[in-house]
């Protein structure tokens, strides 16, 4: 069985599942919309503080918000894998000749597509609020969000494969996701943070994703932030995906 064909089959299977209840794709848009309408106005009042030029809060906030959507939106996909483990579907796939990595790739690609749809919608909503979009930069940033999404989804699947029950999954994922988003300068620019906090944020790979996202939206393609963000997220994604694949191999033991 060719890898690509396997990925295609698994992607279609998972996508069909998602499309059967498309409502959830929209329900998970609710939170970013709340941030957009109930939190961003607070930032407008802050305009002028370091890292948040007056009148440009939308331009700073949205690229960060999109990264946050990628972080949180894909972090909890492990729950639907637990269902599939319990019902024996994963086991059934594992005895077919389909490539092991296709089983997971088909899922994380679905997760990435769902996330990107949401990112596009939120961006469209933000344009009337004053967001200016550099089309080339935006398209590139979508690649970045897809990688963040795949990283988080793979992590979520790894824990699902290790625990195989729901109870410990949510606390584990929350414990990881919350500091990741707090330490990435999404809500407020890290320039406002005390030095020690800024240093801590440097250890968070996703803070580089946020920087890259902002640079891309601004269209500053010469910024090193972009390269840094892509390289770091790509490496992280590879490691975490490899980990999830390894967890799948150990499923039966």
């Amino acid at each position, binding site marked *: *069985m060719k890898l690509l*064909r*396997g990925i295609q*089959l698994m992607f279609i*299977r998972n996508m*069909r*599942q998602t499309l*059967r209840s498309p409502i959830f794709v929209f329900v998970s848009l609710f939170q970013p919309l709340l941030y957009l309408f109930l939190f961003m106005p607070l930032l407008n009042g802050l305009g002028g503080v370091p890292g948040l030029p007056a009148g440009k809060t939308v331009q700073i906030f949205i690229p960060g918000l999109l990264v946050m959507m990628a972080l949180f939106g894909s972090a909890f996909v492990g729950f639907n894998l637990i269902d*599939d483990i319990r*019902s*024996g*579907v994963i*086991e*059934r*796939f*594992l*005895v*077919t*000749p*389909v490539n092991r990595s296709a089983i997971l790739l088909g899922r994380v690609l679905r997760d990435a597509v769902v996330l990107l749809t949401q990112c596009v919608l939120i961006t469209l909503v933000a344009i009337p609020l004053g967001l200016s979009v550099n089309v080339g930069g935006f398209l590139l940033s979508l690649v970045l969000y897809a990688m963040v999404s795949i990283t988080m989804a793979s992590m979520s699947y790894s824990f699902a494969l290790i625990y195989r029950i729901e109870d410990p999954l949510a606390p584990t994922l929350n414990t990881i996701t919350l500091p990741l988003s707090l330490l990435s300068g999404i809500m407020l620019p890290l320039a406002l943070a005390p030095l020690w906090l800024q240093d801590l944020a440097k250890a968070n790979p996703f803070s580089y994703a946020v920087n890259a996202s902002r640079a891309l939206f601004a269209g500053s393609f010469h910024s090193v932030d972009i390269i840094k963000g892509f390289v770091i997220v790509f490496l992280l994604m590879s490691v975490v995906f490899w980990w999830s694949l390894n967890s799948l191999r150990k499923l*039966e*033991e």
Partner: protein
Amino acid sequence: MTEELVIETKGLKKTFVSKIKGKKKEVEAVKGVDLAVKKGEIFGFLGPNGAGKSTTQKMLSTLLPPTGGEAKVAGFDLQKEQSQIRKNIGYVSQAGGTDSGATGYENLILQAQLYGIDDKTAKKQAEELVKRFQMDSFADRPASTYSGGQKRRLDVALGMTHRPQLLLLDEPTTGLDPQSRVYMWEEIKKLKADGVSIFLTTHYMEEADNLCDTIAIIDDGTIIVKGTPMELKNSIGADIIVFGFSDENIARKSEQLLEKFHPEKITLEKTFVRLHIKDGDRAMPEVLRLLDANNLKAQNITLSRPSLDDVFLKYTGRSLREDNK
């Protein structure tokens, strides 16, 4: 001449190590099993809960790496040629494996595609299987709406989508009503007629007796006895044929006459003669002919045979039925 084997294991072993509160706990689920499943036969694996049936099948299906021993499945080495094995066998696990979010058709089509079958053929085969397993009335509904028995039928159909030469079935008829069970037996027999070799586990003596060419009884990770259902039953002791006659005189005469068959034992009790004899079902016609020829007419005859339940009781020291409750 050696017969071709589809499964051959030597000392196949699985020990699970689980950590409970930091302490390592070992479970020897399968303790060195030797199996030989012949090509084209239905091989039954019989044993109480926790005996190690599913664990053995999972190892043979390549899902679970053995802790020891060797095995050849469908002619391929279990350690080295797992992907070859996967292509050549079908496996239906005890828990099933239907995708409840998809319809029966979608399940079947995807399964075929995963085995490299092209879309058009996959669709055609799915339709055939739906007919074959009488799933027409529900196959286009999501599997989440199926009854237990409907789901089980889909499980088994999924296992044979790619027409494997060897099928591993873990309790294929659990949850089926008596009618569906008999129907499933017929399907399994048809598969055998098509040349498919089948290795199934079961709790039902009746099923093993009805379906299997060879049976192995496993208890606590060890195979205790193997043989054809007939051999196993004969190993328990002879069959008993009881004759009822109209008077004691005829009964006595008959008793003397029946000595000719060299029975293990023969007893006379008023108008009843009890003949303990091996393979009673085969002896019966001749016995009747002899009595007839001597004008000794029996009023009633019953043949009672040791059942597989008795076999199980003898070898494991307990009844399978008790375990099942």
